[in-house]
């Protein structure tokens, strides 16, 4: 038992490590420029008017944020690509250099070309360069070798653009493509983006939201309160209703109550909650059909100095529909599973013994059967933590509640990666912790479960 718990606890960091790699990977492949979104708006505006100044401030920002470091502890690549490409801050320039190097294999020549183009693009703004400077600025971001060749050819034959042309012909002439065939492994050590990112996350600094530049932790904290409130009430409701329903349906198997509740629960389980939620919001919160029973959106405002009764009334009327929509699928799920396992338990010999002893049916059900039949409840408990976020994405969207689900949606649609990634990490942590807790609780309620052997793993995870 203890050794099993320890082993599971050892898995937890491994899972989280993989999850962190996944999140970091997501961050890395995300389109868009992370540095640009962190620059003050005043700086971004200089991008077209003073490109050289913008470039300098961009580089400073990239260095301050650690975006000029290697991505990971090591890199695997072909020998043609240099190990210093990560120092180029802007993703578009990096792509351009990468594409040129891959097509020629000659990094030193590409480097010379890059320096010449930069010299032209961000050098003195002179009359002579009126044609060539814009071309050079475009060249910095152009990653298609053919288009680069065309653009270089279109440069005027003057003093200013001569170095660029010469460097480019070097790139194309000194073809060393065979270097692509050599593999190269490079070790970067702890000075890398992943390491820094992980350390920041571990120390509790999740960065700032791209959308409004507020700290991620405070945004999530605010949203979490509502989600916990919503889901806490829903879970409470689920257990309060489904325990008696499931147990009595099993205890009075074949009765009318059993037949009706079984059918009803099956249908409830299949009804998509977001459909019901849509219908409910359409009918009961808008005046469209004259059934405007509930306030429409949000959690409601409580006026200052209101009595607790008024506060409860306002909150209650706002929470009633979302909690119902959130609770009914799990309610149906738990009741059905509880009924099934309780029916199985009722066939056991100990129930007959209890009945012979003269115990009443409700005594048997509540005192003896419930404990043995409570596995579905524990399974749900394990799934509860991830459901906190996942299940409420839709409900919070539909009822427009400012919880974590809504936050995830707006962040994902607005590409607000710091928030999305923190939520994914948090959810992964909660999922892993929930599953671990469920497994352990499983063993405590049923001492017969020998954790650690392969067969029990499948039983409890199924």
């Amino acid at each position, binding site marked *: 038992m203890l050794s099993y718990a320890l082993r599971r606890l050892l898995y937890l960091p491994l899972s989280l490590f993989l999850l962190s790699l996944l999140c970091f990977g997501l961050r890395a492949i995300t389109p868009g420029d992370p540095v640009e979104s962190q620059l003050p708006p005043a700086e971004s505006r200089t991008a077209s008017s003073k490109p050289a100044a913008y470039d300098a401030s961009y580089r400073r920002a990239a260095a301050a944020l650690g975006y000029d470091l290697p991505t990971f502890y090591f890199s695997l690549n072909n020998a043609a690509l240099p190990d210093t490409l990560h120092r180029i801050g802007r993703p578009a320039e990096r792509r351009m250099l990468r594409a040129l190097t891959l097509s020629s294999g000659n990094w030193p020549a590409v480097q010379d070309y890059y320096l010449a183009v930069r010299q032209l693009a961000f050098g003195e703004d002179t009359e002579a360069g009126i044609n060539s400077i814009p071309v050079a600025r475009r060249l910095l971001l152009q990653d298609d070798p053919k288009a680069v060749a065309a653009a270089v050819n279109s440069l005027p034959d003057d003093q200013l653009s001569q170095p660029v042309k010469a460097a480019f012909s070097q790139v194309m002439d000194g073809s060393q493509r065979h270097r692509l065939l050599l593999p190269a492994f490079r070790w970067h050590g702890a000075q890398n983006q992943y390491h820094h990112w992980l350390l920041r996350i571990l120390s509790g600094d999740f960065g700032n939201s791209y959308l409004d530049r507020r700290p991620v932790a405070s945004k999530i904290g605010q949203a979490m309160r509502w989600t916990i409130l919503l889901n806490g009430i829903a879970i409470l409701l689920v257990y309060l209703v489904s325990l008696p329903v499931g147990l009595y349906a099993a205890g009075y198997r074949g009765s009318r109550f059993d037949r009706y509740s079984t059918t009803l629960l099956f249908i409830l389980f*299949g009804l998509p909650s977001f459909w019901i939620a849509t219908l409910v919001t359409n009918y009961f919160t808008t005046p469209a059909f004259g059934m405007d029973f509930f306030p429409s959106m949000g959690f409601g405002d409580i006026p200052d100095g209101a009595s607790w009764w008024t506060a409860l009334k306002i909150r209650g009327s706002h929470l009633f529909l979302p909690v119902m929509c959130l609770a009914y699928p799990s309610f149906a799920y738990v009741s059905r599973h509880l009924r099934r396992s309780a029916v199985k338990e009722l066939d056991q010999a100990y129930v007959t013994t209890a009945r012979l002893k003269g115990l009443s049916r409700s005594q048997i059900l509540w005192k003896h059967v419930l404990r043995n039949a409570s596995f579905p409840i524990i399974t749900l408990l394990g799934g509860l933590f991830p459901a906190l976020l996942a299940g409420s994405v839709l409900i919070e969207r539909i009822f427009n509640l400012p919880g974590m689900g809504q936050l995830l949606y707006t962040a994902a649609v607005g590409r607000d990666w710091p928030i999305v990634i923190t939520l994914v990490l948090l959810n992964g942590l909660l999922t892993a912790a929930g599953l671990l807790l469920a497994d352990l609780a499983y063993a405590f309620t049923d001492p017969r479960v020998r954790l650690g052997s392969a067969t029990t793993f499948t039983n409890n995870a199924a």
Partner: protein
Amino acid sequence: MKEKRKRHTVARWWLIGLLTVAVFADFIANDRPLIASVNGETRFPVLHEYGETLGLAEHYSPVVRSWKRVETDWAIWPVVPYSAGGTDLKNGNYRSPFGEQDTGDRARHWLGTDELGRDVAAGLIRGTRIAVLVGFGSVLISLLLGIPLGGIAGFFGNHGLRAPRYHWWGWAVGGTLGVLYASLSLIPFYRLESTVAITGLAISCFALGGWLFRSLLSFIPALKKETAFPADTLVLQGIELFVNIPALVLLIALIAIINQPSIGIVVLIIGVLRWPSVARYLRAELLRIRSLPYIEAARVNGIPKWRILFRHALPNALGPLLIVSSFALGGAVLLEAFLSFLGIGIPADEVTWGSLLRQSRTHPQAWWMAVFPGLLLTGTVLAANLLGEEG
């Protein structure tokens, strides 16, 4: 029992009907006639469209842009003579199925219209196609991943696959290195861009690297000892790692990253995220089957173990697996509706059950836009769950 069988039959027919509607969607709802005679020439506009897409047929000339304005000698129209995206501005602004409609000679909008007069019935039929595509497609992908992994884990366990150590290490290390070399050096060197060529190169590099390393390592005496491949442990650990991934949250994050939403990606992601349940079920099933007497008999008779797996064990496990995976079908259809309801992942111009539901939120009076897609969705989920419950 009899009642149950009847319900199963209903559920099965529901799914079959859905599949049929999805396959023949273009012939059921279309704003082109099935057969029409124009100026003495007989045309098959719907069928011809397929021919044009496949490059088998030329455009009819003269080209007909809008069939409803063409004078035809006679024409056979589909049951719903409207297309999913097609607007009918005369009947715009949410016409109720029972209300007044200004359709002239054409059929009524049986299930009403939306703001731009788009036919809801045509949208539902188009949505059926997408739901079926996502449902069956993602189940197929999860089966493709889950059956080999779960099958090997369950049938061979930790001790069933035995070979010298150099065999396992050679293939694992050599294969990985081969694929890495292909992707880092060979693909940019040969400037490969087509998916087929890249996949082919990766596979051949895997085979070459694995074989090379295996032969090299076989000279090391320490690696000659025969060991078992811990298939079961590896697969179980993979499942455990996957189970810890918050699927829905990750799905939203992944789909929002992708610049161009497409149904294929949604199908792929849902399928990949669902393989653990398939693998787990098949593993448990094969654990049971492999201890049955007939497998023992086959083994004693000297039938090779891979042959036992494919010819004797797997066929018996696939039936129950397919029944259980109809659960997954319902789940995937629901997830697709969920995503298109949120408006992520599915292209914005596709009409789906979820997107109709979302539209209904902007205009609550249009009950027909909320009720009908929801009924279809519920029916599908219930049918899938009924079949998945299994006797």
